[in-house]
């Protein structure tokens, strides 16, 4: 596949991470890395710990053991707010949009870390606050154009169909101009056409902005087509790690997840 940005050095490395909720072990000594500009997939059966893994990277959950290394810095107890500030953005399995606001407002919230004016300046709405708002509006409109959601920008998000909501969530994540984008089942619940659109957008993001992507996905066709490398989790453990072809033919993965086509 031709790409605008070639795969670079290791951007994120997960080392020996173990996570438990009470007695339930969600992750058990998982280690893998993600290189800059690549598209990395995490696959596995339900309950394997994929979302938990993303939550750990993103600071929502704190692992009991192990560490995360991002852009050279080491973390165990990063909180989600810090992760956002470092350039990690994500979308969620069950859409986490702000239902009371319009599409435009939702995407604008993605810019919050870049806004510098304090509330007093905003209350007065002159000079710096006004300029900043318009400047970020311009940036957000570009993302809205990129994801082709101009026609619904003033619609309250709660009224949109599922597929469009997912796109808005992607827009919000992109608004933060992230270095690493975590996508939790971005194509869940979509029909073929919507999936194709979403695939196109995801690849465009990687191509155009150079964003490194980590995505959880169940559709094997998508995974095999668009990812550079794949991690396979099962019951909280890593059972395979490699290119899509390597993983597809790995016996452990076939047993645990992929199965075999019957004649």
């Amino acid at each position, binding site marked *: 596949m031709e790409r605008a940005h070639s795969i670079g050095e290791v951007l994120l490395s997960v080392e020996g991470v173990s996570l438990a909720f009470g007695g339930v072990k969600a992750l058990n000594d998982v280690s893998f890395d993600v290189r800059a500009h690549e598209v990395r997939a995490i696959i596995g059966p339900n309950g394997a710990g994929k979302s938990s893994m993303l939550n750990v990277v993103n600071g929502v959950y704190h692992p009991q053991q192990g560490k995360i290394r991002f852009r050279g810095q080491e973390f165990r107890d990063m909180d989600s707010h810090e992760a956002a*500030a470092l350039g990690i953005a994500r979308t969620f399995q069950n859409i986490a*949009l702000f239902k009371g*606001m319009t599409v435009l407002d939702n995407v*604008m919230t993605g810019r*919050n870390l870049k806004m510098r004016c304090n509330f007093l300046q905003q209350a007065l709405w002159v000079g710096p606050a006004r300029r900043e708002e318009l400047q970020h509006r311009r940036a957000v409109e570009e993302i809205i154009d990129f994801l082709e959601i101009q026609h619904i920008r003033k619609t309250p998000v709660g009224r949109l169909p599922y597929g469009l909501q997912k796109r808005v969530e992607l827009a919000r994540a992109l608004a933060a101009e992230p270095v690493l984008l975590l996508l939790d089942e971005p194509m869940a619940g979509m029909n073929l056409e919507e999936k194709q659109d979403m695939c196109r957008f995801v690849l465009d993001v990687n191509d155009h902005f150079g964003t490194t992507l980590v995505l959880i996905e169940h559709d094997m066709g998508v995974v095999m087509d668009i990812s550079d490398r794949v991690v396979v989790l099962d019951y909280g453990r890593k059972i395979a790690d490699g290119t899509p072809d390597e993983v597809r033919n790995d016996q452990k993965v076939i047993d645990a997840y992929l199965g075999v086509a019957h004649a």
Partner: protein
Amino acid sequence: MLYREAGQFRSTYAEDQQIFPIRQDRIAIALLLAIAFVAVPVFGDQYWLSAIITPFLILALATLGLNILTGYAGQLSLGTAAFMGIGAFMAYNAMLRIPHMPIVGAFIVGGLCAAAVGIVFGLPSLRIKGFYLAVATLACQFFVLWALNRVGWFSNYSSSGVITAQRMDILGYPIDTPATKYLLTLAVVALMALAAKNLMRSETGRAFMAVRDMDVAASVIGIPMMKTKLLAFAISSFYCGVAGALYAFCYLGTVEPEAFTLDLSFRVLFMVIIGGAGSILGSFLGAAFITLFPIFLNLASKWLEHALGIELSHALVSNTEAIIFGGLIIFFLIVEPNGLARLWQIAKEKLRLWPFPH
């Protein structure tokens, strides 16, 4: 016909961001402000000014404050009256103890003190939500009321507990007639409403609404929970504090704790619910509704007395009022949870097409 937007294009983002993007709205607001600032004080009936319109404006400001906290930021508060009380008492004390304190400065001092207390009682919101937070704000309401009553410093050790609000003047002009008090109130409320609108349409407002809608997600995209919630409490309490100071100085004429009981907190909450949570316009509509409704009820009961030739006791009327208020709250929550503001929006949508059916 009148309300068609055809031909009004917005070609820059700045135009799109205006508070009143439609030209007819701009004209209407200009007219309204002209009437409010010029016609009303000159031609208005003194009684209506002092007993109805001024308290309506003041309560609208308090409703605005509560709306910022509960409607926009989603933090339920039952302590509104306590913050108003702090504003009133601290404004009084500022006038009393600081020489040459201008009245507007005293209002600001009152607001800032209320904001400080708001931050303190807002700290629990970092750990608790929903009804639990409501109970925590009740703690604020009862504690503050007790303190204002018992701690002599607040009322300057007055033996009767009821203190008269000081004379006000601005740049030498005395503010002592219903008309001048009305104008001062109107100016303050108009400015603060504008500030509130600006705040709510910029990043602060979006952060508040994000916290309200899904605070875990908000935190994940980088919105700082603590700062945002405490800011909501601070700004809201500031507004309520100024409203309380206005309540004492421009309406009651006295500064007493009994004016700021739990009952007032509920009234303001009802204004938010009926007017529309999360709406600046809604705050005004709700305040108007709840201020005017008892008057309407009184008139209706007088008419009923007259028509049926019977005596309706005061208790009967006030109890009926309570029943109808409660009933209206339930009605609005069922039929239109977004209150009068949403009904207004729907009306405007219909007006855009009128007289055509679709």
